[in-house]
């Protein structure tokens, strides 16, 4: 790691005012979208706009105050972006609720639950910022995190807990709630990988045998992490959760590369990925059907119905969209969860989709920026891991919906209906804020640190 030269490091400003300003803009977007849905569907601004808007405002303001107190130097852009995404997501889910209610008075509604989950997410966000005052403490929980991740991933396979929904066994039922432990496992795995790699990265990078032009590390260095990774990947394959398998594989590869600074890992990893994908394609019929619907979605059949409807919706939206409440997003199966981007494409058009993609891009950019300015290796790795996992997730889900890559089920962060995903992503943002607060905080004044002053240099004379 590069030693930070105090001369070169400038002091970051806190920028909390900027955050507040952006947050107000985000609230305008979120509450405005909610009002627009009411106008589009029912012709009037919904009656509960005050309650809803107030609730959203309170959540955002609380977040802001907590950040102000507990992470004053944290990145000012992350929280407003998340608030905007969450607000738009809520408005779209509410819009789909209204359409479902119009068809069937007893239809399930999701917006209220989603707002509750968001509240829970904000509580967790606060808890993370308040409890974890220094992210380096997390390094102590490296192996606990690792085991927790595996445990969480195995949970849905347990016969009395797990349920299979839409072909993937990735949910558990606790009382009336269903929960996707994989979302939380994602965070745990990042911490585990980061903690392990910080300790072993030199050994991984330097000690080892050279074979076929590539330096392979020793088994004892690579063993534990490889085992943990294989277990999680195996579990996911067993659960038929393609999206998460892809995500964890990519995460592992990138963190290994960043820790060891050896691009060879990317080459080896990509080769493994291609081979693994091909084997998966040959072995599993559900992988084949996904690829088939990707290559030839028309004529739309049972396999490609969803993706074709999503494409129709987005094409129907065109450049500027039909307007909130004026499209037909209920024609797309799961437009409130995995396919929420298609619903946005239909009602807000290419403009809206691009705005959403750019917002996600900004989150990743702020995450990676945090990793760059972070002073400790563990923080760098955690921030990189969280940002990359976020980027991959957005790419896999939006790319799948827009038929850039074969469709694999993953949630759209902060927008899809789904409590586990929302809560986990709020925690990810809290962790990023914590690391960035640490990274941007001015170095504490230490005796002898201003050693550029020759006049005060202490010289030992004996």
């Amino acid at each position, binding site marked *: *790691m*590069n030693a930070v030269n105090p001369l070169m490091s400038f002091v970051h400003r806190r920028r909390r005012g900027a955050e507040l300003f952006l947050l107000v803009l985000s609230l305008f977007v979120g509450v405005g979208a909610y009002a627009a849905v009411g106008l589009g569907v029912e012709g009037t601004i919904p009656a509960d706009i005050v309650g809803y808007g107030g609730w959203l405002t309170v959540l955002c303001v609380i977040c802001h105050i907590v950040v102000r107190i507990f992470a004053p130097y944290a990145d000012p852009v992350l929280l407003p972006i998340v608030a905007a995404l969450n607000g738009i997501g809520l408005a779209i889910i509410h819009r789909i609720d209204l359409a479902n209610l119009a068809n069937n008075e007893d239809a399930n509604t999701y917006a209220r639950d989603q707002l509750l989950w968001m509240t829970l997410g904000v509580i967790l966000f606060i808890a993370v910022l308040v409890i974890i005052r220094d992210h380096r403490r997390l390094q102590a929980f490296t192996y606990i995190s690792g085991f927790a991740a595996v445990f969480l991933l195995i949970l849905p396979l347990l016969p009395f807990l797990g349920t299979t929904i839409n072909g993937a066994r990735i949910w558990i039922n606790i009382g009336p709630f269903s929960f996707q432990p994989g979302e939380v496992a994602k965070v745990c795995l990042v911490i585990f990988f980061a903690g392990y790699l910080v300790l072993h990265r030199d050994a991984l990078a330097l000690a080892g045998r050279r074979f076929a032009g590539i330096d392979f590390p020793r088994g004892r260095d690579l063993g534990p992490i490889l085992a943990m990774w294989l277990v999680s990947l195996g579990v996911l394959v067993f659960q038929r959760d393609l999206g998460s398998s892809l995500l964890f594989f990519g995460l592992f590869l*990138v963190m290994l*590369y*960043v*820790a060891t*600074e050896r*691009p060879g890992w990317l080459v080896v990893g990509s080769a493994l990925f291609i081979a693994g994908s091909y084997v998966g394609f040959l072995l599993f019929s559900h992988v084949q059907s996904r690829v088939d619907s990707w290559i030839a979605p*028309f*004529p*739309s059949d049972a396999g490609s119905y969803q993706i*074709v409807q999503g*494409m*129709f*919706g*987005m*094409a*129907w*939206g*065109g*450049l500027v969209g039909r307007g909130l409440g004026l*499209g*037909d997003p209920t*024609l797309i199966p799961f437009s409130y969860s995995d396919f929420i981007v298609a619903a946005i*494409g239909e009602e807000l*058009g*290419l403009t809206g*989709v*691009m705005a959403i*993609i*750019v917002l*996600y*891009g900004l989150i*990743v*950019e702020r995450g*990676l920026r945090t*990793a*760059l300015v972070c002073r400790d*290796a563990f923080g*760098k*790795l955690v921030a*990189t891991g969280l*940002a*990359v996992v976020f*980027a*991959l997730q*957005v*790419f896999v889900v*939006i*790319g799948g919906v*827009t*038929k*850039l890559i074969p469709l694999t089920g993953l949630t759209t962060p902060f927008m899809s209906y789904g409590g586990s995903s929302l809560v986990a992503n709020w925690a990810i943002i809290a962790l990023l804020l914590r690391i960035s607060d640490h990274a941007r905080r001015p170095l504490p004044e230490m005796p002898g640190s201003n050693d550029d002053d020759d006049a005060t240099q202490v010289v030992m004379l004996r």
Partner: protein
Amino acid sequence: MNKPIRTMSIACMALFIALLVNATYLQYLQADELNSRNDNKRVRDAEFSRERGAILVHDISVAESVPVDDEFEYQRVYRSPLKYAHLTGYYSYTYGRNAVELTQNDILSGSDPRLFVNRVVDLFGNSQPEGGDVSLTIDPKAQSAAYDGLRDLGDNVEGSVVALDPSTGAILAMVSSPTYDPNKLSSHKLNAIQEAWERQQGDPARPMLNRGIQEVYPPGSTFKLVTAAAALSSGQYNPGSTVPGGTRLDLPQTDTDLVNDSGGDCGGDKISLTEALAVSCNVSFGYLGMELGADTLREQAEKFGFGERYFEDLNGQVASRFPEAPDEPQTALSAIGQFDVASTPLQMAMVTAGIANGGSVMKPYLVDEVRSPDLDVLDKASPEAFREAVSSSVASDLTQMMIEVVERGTATTAQIPGMKVAGKTGTAQSSPDRPPYAWFVSFAPADDPQVAVAVLVEDAGVARDAISGSGLAAPIAKRVMEAVMSR
């Protein structure tokens, strides 16, 4: 560690750029293609809930969209559904569109480029785009006469009437029977639509078939007009030329002879060409066919439009045909409209109209005007010459011969007091187990033709010996001609 993090930043940026580019492709470049797919329910729904233009006949709407209080907001309603079914077609949520609803869909739905300015105005005015109107060339009196004429033979009569304005090619009447109710296919009750559709499809009489253009029948003796045209055009014959008559023609290479209808005599062993047409002498025309040869007959038929599809305003036109390579006896049979000669009623109407129009066949059309929702005329059909079938002198010879047919020949039933009518009957055998086809083609007034008609009665459910062109078909043609002349 910063170098790999920077590398990852660029990689992530590449991922997001790929997403942006792909979204642009999907929502901008590929959007038109996706929006035009038939299985795209959104586009169909939107089109359904739009005010669709009307189909007009002399400014009276035969198909229009009326506001209703359901999810589609507008319901397509067909006034006089049975009479106009094969012209308007249907506009069905489940089964798509047909006829003018299909061929003029762009105008009716409002997506035609000619309505672009309206669409832009709608966009800024935030109002739903409206469709334009389509006005047909149909003469409502002629259409009614044709429809009633056919239906008077019985509700289950199978047949068709096509009437043209010979000088323009405008279709004045086009009726096909049995017919169907397009309202039943265009309702918003999806179960009812399906039921109606399956009933129509299962009906052996095929009520949804437009017999005027979508099916070919042996034209029988009406095809003798084509043979006569070929004979006159060859220069070897004139109306007074003598041709063999009598009771039978020996067909070479076979044991059978060609006989006249009901085995009669043509009025002498040598008769004039005019006489041969007046009594519809099979012997004479079979002889002419063999003398002229199949190629000459085919060329003449093609000049009238056989072997081609030229009618664009309705979908599904079938080309009429003259056999590829008939041998001599087959040529003789073809010359009298038997063997493998087959024609749509529209095609026989065009043969008649071509003769009426001095030999020049006009391209038939059904759509007269298309109008914007504000009733501005966007496009008006201009008559187009299709082909020069015969010279004007041959045409006038043929006209004279056809007048004889009506005045003293086989078609006296088509006479209109105070007016010269030119016509030709036909009774075509197809197979022994089904009744013959009764045909009649005519135009009037013969000296200044205003209307040319072709009538086909495929099956009227009457006794076999009661079927004849003059008995069944000519009175209908007469009604249609009278209707046109009375305007």
